[in-house]
């Protein structure tokens, strides 16, 4: 074990996998000399040379190039500086990467990881602060990971790079500086589709993703001080989704709150809430409570941003709502 920052954990896994498998390479904007504007590729150019390439600012073009290289047998990692830029590469991701294998009758595969950061935390305003995982869950063919800590980032990313399918890997800009113990084992992986129970509890189940996990933990402490014992579950991958772990918890608590940073309307929370209700209807003492960003573009001003994205107090309230307190 070593204590590592989230960004360093990611960088180290990329380096280790590139050492292990010469078919792995990485392309993206400003990832070479600069080492990525968040440092996730720092130092890789020196070790791997031409396998680490700065791209022109042309996301559809270089995501498409990743797809072509993958079809031709390589294992590309494509860094998007902000996952918001999936918008300019959406056809390549949702019509090509996600569909080609199926449309080709299973006769091709696209082992590719599209990774980058999303979310709030830098005052980048509406087009650089979104959380977009819901899109990639709706259209079949991709897998979607969103690690909430350095260890999961390392374990999930290694799983992603070794997976033979196209993966959307959502890091969070506000987590890059966070650190925790990360296993040194160069084969340490975290499986997709296995949620982690971050905090065991008995009164209410709180399902939280990415940055919201830490807020949920804070909320749990506040709730504990009021005698409410919350169980917190981090799905870690929203596709595949480990609904069983979630449903087992809800059957125990009878109450569920889902919190994500993405917009509440049409977010992954709606899917999870629906599945919980479908699978644990008789156990629910209250309707599943969904928390997510309000229905407006993320504002630049910090006071406004705070009013839009769920905070600790909103999670506390949410838990009390389903407990009718």
């Amino acid at each position, binding site marked *: 074990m070593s204590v590592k920052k989230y960004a360093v954990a990611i960088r180290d896994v990329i380096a280790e996998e590139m050492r292990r498998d010469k078919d792995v*390479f990485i392309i993206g904007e400003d990832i070479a000399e600069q080492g990525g504007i968040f440092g996730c590729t720092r130092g890789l150019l020196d070790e791997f040379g031409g396998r680490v390439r700065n791209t022109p600012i042309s996301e559809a*073009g*270089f995501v*498409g190039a990743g797809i072509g*290289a993958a079809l031709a047998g390589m294992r590309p990692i494509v860094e998007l500086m902000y996952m918001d830029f999936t918008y300019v590469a959406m*056809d*390549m991701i949702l019509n090509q990467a996600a569909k080609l294998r199926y*449309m*080709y009758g299973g006769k091709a595969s696209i082992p590719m990881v599209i990774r980058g950061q999303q979310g709030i935390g830098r005052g980048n305003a509406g087009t650089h602060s979104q959380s977009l995982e819901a899109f990639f869950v709706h259209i079949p063919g991709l897998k979607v990971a969103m690690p909430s800590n350095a260890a999961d980032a390392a374990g999930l990313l290694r799983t992603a790079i070794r997976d033979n399918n196209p993966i959307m890997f959502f890091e969070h800009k506000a987590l890059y500086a966070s650190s925790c113990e990360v296993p040194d084992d160069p084969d340490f992986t975290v499986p997709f589709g296995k949620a982690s129970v971050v905090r065991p509890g008995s009164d209410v189940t709180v399902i939280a993703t990415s940055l919201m996990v830490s807020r949920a933990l804070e909320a749990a402490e506040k709730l504990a001080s009021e005698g409410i014992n919350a169980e917190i579950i981090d799905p870690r991958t929203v596709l595949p989704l480990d609904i069983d772990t979630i449903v087992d918890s809800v059957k125990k608590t009878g109450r569920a709150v889902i919190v994500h940073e993405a917009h509440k309307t049409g977010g992954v929370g709606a899917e999870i809430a629906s599945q919980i209700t479908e699978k644990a209807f008789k156990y629910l003492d209250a309707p599943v409570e969904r928390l997510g960003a309000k229905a407006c573009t993320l504002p630049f001003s910090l006071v406004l941003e705070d009013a839009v994205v769920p905070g600790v107090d909103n999670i506390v309230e949410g838990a009390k709502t389903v407990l009718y307190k």
Partner: protein
Amino acid sequence: MEKKRMLKIYHDMLVIRRFEEKALKLFEENKLRGSVHLTIGQEAVPTTVCSNLGDDDYITSTHRGHGHCIAKGAEPDKALAELMGKATGYCGGRGGSMHIADVTKGNLGANAIVGAGIPIATGAGLAAQLRGTDQVAVTFFGDGASNEGVFHEGLNLASVWKLPVIFVCENNQFGISTHVSISTSVEDIAVRAKAYNIPGTVVDGNDIFAVDKAFKKALVRARKGEGPSLIECKTYRWYGHWTGDPEVYRTREEVEEWKRKCPIKRLEKYMLDEGVMDQAGIDAAHAEADRIIAEAEDFAINSPEPDPTHVLDNVYCD
């Protein structure tokens, strides 16, 4: 041109022609659905280009892809079965006419999204470069596709990274009903090569010798690691954009005039004049193509429908 390759090109052009005539007939008999985009009249480009490639070279194709996939080695029976959505088709009925691929033959696939094959081929070229092989990637696309953003992004990327990619524009002068002069700001799309500092050439796309000469030049450059090229082949599609096109955008005369420029007839005349082949040989070649397509039709028609219980297979691989 070596006789062997000339005969291969001739054979492939005939097979593509018959294949599509058959597809049209099956469509009119309602034995086949979807949008079938016929490449009849344009056969010279895919056949000549692919006659220069090996199975380990890559191509990406378009919605008008029957020619490319047959020229790159697809078997007409499995291809026709795919057009009919049969279980025995290349995609097991999942993809249809616009998604035939055969990675084992270097065909990275037809693509129903205009321009999408361009960056994908660019990536296949990147794979070759990273592995240090002399493989090349060829992407076929239309005049209309040259106005999509991915055309720009793909050519710029291939140029700055000196990738072994050959961009082959089949300028058949229309994007559905829209004439190239209305959609495209340059008369010769090849001029756009200047925007990427790469060679650009215009050739008569119905003349296999002209296409061959230009492509060979680009191929040498690509295999030597000197970077990409853009080749514009002027040609024409005889049939509507898709089966059922009212064709309000052109005159019958224009179509007839282009039919007189048939790439197959043109090659036949050359071979007869030069004594490469006699009339008997030509008749035999036609008979052979007819036989192949007749067999393909039997195969496709007698193939089973896909099994719906397996519809969720192959979304992911292990």
